């Protein structure tokens, strides 16, 4: 059970702070401990996956289920690529422009899409993602289905270069941490509370003066813009993009991250899910023919038997043992006083 915010005492806060510092330090040191370029690549992809998973969670926190996480990921990747390769802009100019363009797009499309919460939004988000892929595939100047190759890595900022995986990791890590900080601030502010209220009971939220449409739109725009930035980083990291890389499958994987890690954990859930879903399939490659079957069965097992995801299951088992303890204490007390 969650304690109310005022119940958290200074001790737990201090432990939390310590855990965060250790985690960040570990992430900073991580690339020095790893030799293999391939593992480094997987770590970078897991970071991008985490960011995408967190955008899914942000929409879910407002009661919107998106199957189109890949849509703005693709928009960001292609926008930035076009700005850098065709318009000749520096990556560092293209990045804020990408943010602006995708935010405006998200605002326009979101204004139409989030009017239909529930099933209709799920379908619309999925179709929108698919349409973006088809549109890019049809557009000759975007390279069609063959995609674009030879996208440059981000220009160096003074002495800081981003040419190698090692350097790029820090760039993506910095962005990841920024997203974590901003999202945490949002979730713990009254915006986050309004999102939760809309998700838990739209009717009650309405009678408290919460404009569900506006708050859902806000979540959509923030989530989509974040995904677009992730796409921008992906394009300049991977250096070639094809429409196929942004198919509906990617969106499904993204929600898998959130469900696997734990739906109620908007930050840590996607992180754990993304790391597992990036590394495990790599080792399932040996059995490539039945890999989707194994993934499917795993998915069903998680949903049917561990619906809280990994973190939710850990928390629940911790609570159960506490409750069991409480119950035993009560029993002993009752037997001592001879009542009930």
């Amino acid at each position, binding site marked *: 059970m969650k304690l109310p915010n005022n119940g958290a005492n200074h001790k737990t806060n201090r432990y939390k702070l310590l855990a965060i510092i250790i985690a960040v330090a570990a992430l900073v040191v991580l690339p020095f401990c790893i030799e293999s370029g391939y593992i480094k690549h997987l770590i970078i992809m897991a970071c991008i996956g985490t960011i995408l998973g967190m955008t899914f969670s942000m929409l879910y926190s407002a009661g919107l289920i998106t199957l189109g996480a890949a849509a703005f990921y693709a928009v960001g990747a292609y926008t930035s690529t076009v700005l850098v390769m065709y318009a000749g802009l520096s990556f560092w100019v293209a990045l804020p422009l990408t943010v602006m363009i995708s935010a405006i797009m998200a605002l326009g499309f979101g204004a139409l899409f989030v009017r239909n919460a529930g099933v*209709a939004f799920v379908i619309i988000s999925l*179709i929108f993602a698919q349409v973006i892929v*088809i549109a890019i595939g049809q557009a000759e100047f975007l390279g069609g289905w063959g995609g674009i190759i030879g996208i440059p890595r981000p220009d160096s900022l003074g002495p800081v270069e981003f040419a190698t995986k090692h350097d790029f990791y820090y760039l993506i890590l910095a962005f990841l941490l920024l997203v974590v900080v901003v999202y945490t601030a949002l979730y713990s502010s009254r915006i986050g509370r309004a999102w939760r209220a809309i*998700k838990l009971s739209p009717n009650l939220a309405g009678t408290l003066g919460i404009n569900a449409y506006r708050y859902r739109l806000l979540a959509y725009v923030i989530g989509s813009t974040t995904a677009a930035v992730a796409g921008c980083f992906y394009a300049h990291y991977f250096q070639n993009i094809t429409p196929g890389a942004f198919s509906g499958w990617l969106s499904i994987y993204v929600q898998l991250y959130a469900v696997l890690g734990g*739906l109620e954990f908007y930050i840590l859930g996607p992180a754990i899910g993304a790391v597992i879903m990036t590394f495990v399939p790599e080792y399932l490659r040996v059995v490539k023919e039945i890999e989707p079957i194994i993934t*499917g069965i795993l*998915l069903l097992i998680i949903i049917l038997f561990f619906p809280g995801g990994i973190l939710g299951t850990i928390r629940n088992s911790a609570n159960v043992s506490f409750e069991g303890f409480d119950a035993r204490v009560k029993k002993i007390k009752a037997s001592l006083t001879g009542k009930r």
Partner: protein
Amino acid sequence: MSLGLFIQLLVNALTIGSIYILMVLGLDIILRGTKILNFAHGQLYMLGAYVLFLFFQTLHLNFALSLVLSGASLALIGALSYLGIFAVLSRRFTVSTTFSYILLLSAMASVGLMMILQQGTLLVFGTQERGIQSPLPQIIDVFNVRISLMRLIIIFLSLLICICLYLLMYKTTFGKILRAVSYDPEAVTLQGINTSWVFVSCFALGSALAGLAGGIIAPLFSVTPSMGQNIIFMSFLVLLVGGIGSYRGTIAGGLLVGLLLSFGFQFMGGIAELFVFMLVIIILVFRPGGLLGEAAE
């Protein structure tokens, strides 16, 4: 445009439209009855085609019988899937479970089912296309326009299935209960009706419709493992255009999308799908609940 081309495109539109209608009626029955947005629907459609292939092409049964068998087999597969997956899942939901949670977990479970069915079929049947010899290869001549008889039969059969479905839903007690469940499962439970078998029937009925759609279309196009993935997007689109929870809307939406795609591909080529999507957005701007649907959820 010549009259001949027009009639040909029209017949094509009606053919694909009627397949969409069957698919979406199934999706809609499942969605409203059991609150599952069924991503495995395309795979059920594909399985319907493979079952027909087995009975008709391999075992040389009569086409009508094979079709009935493929509907029945899919009903069975649907019922088993429901009992094995979704019935277990629904036990986790209580009165206070939020709608978005139910929707997400059910949809994800159907994604799991989709992956298993998709890859399972691929393993059993391989990637190659399977052609089915058309039971009615004749070409008929209307106003000097050559139309494949099979296409007309497909339209006719779809119409027949729709009529049967209408009679089932509106003229039988079973249909009444099914419809009542989609509005208010609790009230039905209070009436003393055991709702769990109703949910199973909803899923089985929806799956059977997908199977029939796959079986009907199989002689026209070849049977491939990817046929399910291709149709699911358009089916979802039709569901939106028609409006969730409206049979008439589904039929109107299916025909509209069929027409747009058929004529669109002829005159615009590959961007026809984009065009259809634009249209869907425009429709949803003015009617958020779809063409004939009730207010959005």
